[in-house]
């Protein structure tokens, strides 16, 4: 049988999908249940959450968390770029050394590293400056140099650098070889070629995983509470150890972590749009 009418698919109506309605209803019920649980369970102690949300010590802790993240991310990224370049170097010993570093520092958990650097004094009682195997010019007791903060900065920077090195290396390898040829052909030096041509184009590939890395570092810094560095988590711990209001104070910490992570995600999207321009 042939179709008598002239068909125009623009006139088609959407299909009815009953299972979607069922799934939607289930999700609505679950959401209502969760909301009810949050609202009615007195142990959340929402008034306490409100009371400590902007507590000076909590805000100081938040500041420390953000500061530590920014410092370690900055230093780690810089070191990571150097490691990536070193790993791609034609000079084999340098390439091997960088590969070894990356394998080592990606393999050791950050918490273990943190404890290790914090306890460096056991291994190395004094830190000294001088000629290797020769005379020493100055030295300091390790415990005065390595505070909780410096241990945290060293630990996270070295850990972060290993991850960033792999991210940057992938970015560099993703840039078309013709771009490097063209840069060399124009008479650019190796440095100009890398910083003006290769790295800016590698950013498109580097930015998305770096954003995730930034976020995971921010959350990772909560580990410093084990060496009594007053970050966000440690600050709320100090408070609930006195008041025993554990859950509401952990919610305060979660609230701030989520705020900062959300801001970082927005920043990441903007950067991606910026560096995606040329492609």
């Amino acid at each position, binding site marked *: 049988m042939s179709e008598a009418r002239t068909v125009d698919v623009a006139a088609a109506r959407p299909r009815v999908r009953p299972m979607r309605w069922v799934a939607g209803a289930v999700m609505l019920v679950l959401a209502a249940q969760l909301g009810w649980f949050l609202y009615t369970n007195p142990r959340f102690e929402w008034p306490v959450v409100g009371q400590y949300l902007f507590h000076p010590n909590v805000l100081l802790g938040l500041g420390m968390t953000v500061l530590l993240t920014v410092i370690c991310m900055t230093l780690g990224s810089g070191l990571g770029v150097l490691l990536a370049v070193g790993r791609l170097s034609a000079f084999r010993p340098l390439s091997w050394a960088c590969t070894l570093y990356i394998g080592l520092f990606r393999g050791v958990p950050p918490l273990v590293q943190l404890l290790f650097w914090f306890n460096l004094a056991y291994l190395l009682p004094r830190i000294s400056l001088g000629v290797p195997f020769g005379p020493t010019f100055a030295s300091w007791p390790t415990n005065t140099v390595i505070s909780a903060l410096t241990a945290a900065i060293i630990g996270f920077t070295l850990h972060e650098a290993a991850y960033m090195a792999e991210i940057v290396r992938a970015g560099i390898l993703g840039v078309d070889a013709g*771009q490097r*040829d*063209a840069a060399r052909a124009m*008479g*650019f030096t190796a440095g100009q070629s890398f910083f*003006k041509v290769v790295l800016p184009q590698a950013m498109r590939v580097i930015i998305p995983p770096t954003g995730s890395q930034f976020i995971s570092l921010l959350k990772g810094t909560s580990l410093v509470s084990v060496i009594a560095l007053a970050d966000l988590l440690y600050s709320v711990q100090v408070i609930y150890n006195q008041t025993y209001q554990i859950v509401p104070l952990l919610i305060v910490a979660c609230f701030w972590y989520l705020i900062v992570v959300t801001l970082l995600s927005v920043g990441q999207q903007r950067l991606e749009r910026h560096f995606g321009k040329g492609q």
Partner: protein
Amino acid sequence: MSGEPVLRVREVRKSFGDHAALDGVSLEVREGEVVTVIGPSGSGKSTLVRCVHQLEAIDGGAMYLDGELLGHEFHRGHLRPLPARKVAAQRSRMGMVFQQFNLFAHWSVLRNLTEPQVLVHGTPVEKAREEALRLLERVGLSDKAQAHPRQLSGGQQQRVAIARALATNPRIMLFDEPTSALDPELVDEVLSVVRDLAGGGMTMIIVTHEMSFAREVADRCVFMEKGRVVETGTPEEIFEHPRSPRLRAFLSRFSGRAAETPHDRVLEEETAS
């Protein structure tokens, strides 16, 4: 004509693994001379210009630009590779145009032309800009100064690439199959820019598959096969009176189509199959 050629290539050898890409190639290019290089795929003609530009290191022989040894120097009586900085300086005296254009993808057309002048030659930004705009006008793309490379057609990108190579005021221009990556209808706009340069007295080596163009634009034509220069001569000698059987065999694949009609293009890939 002065005595010293702009470029002198003497017995250059280059291998990739076991494969000898250049097996003792010699070539001289004089001031204002246009040399076209033809030959089958894999004959080493692209490798030759890449070696001249020092994008590939040669294994033996020597190359001179204006009498200056390329890539090496005598240091306390010993021949040694040049430091990277000096190699870069030598490269900046030659202009290179690639098959794949290789415009800097993250910069605007204008910046593609200004940045090399500023970075490599220390030209003041304003002067570099003027020069860039003048060159864009010359290749007929003044209106595209602010565009990004990916917004241009292949032919337009290649014309920008030619302007970019000219921006640093090179002694010699090297073309590595400049039209091989282009759609057929975009080839002529690029060739007319190259033709215009040849008319302006620019010294050039052009590696090309465009037989009629190779004949028309050349002062001298070089036929390469298996990493060697098989025959060199004027376009008439090469295309009308080929001496070697191999050149005759190569040209016979184009006969009846390319040799007679100057603007008919024939891609080698089509005939080689």
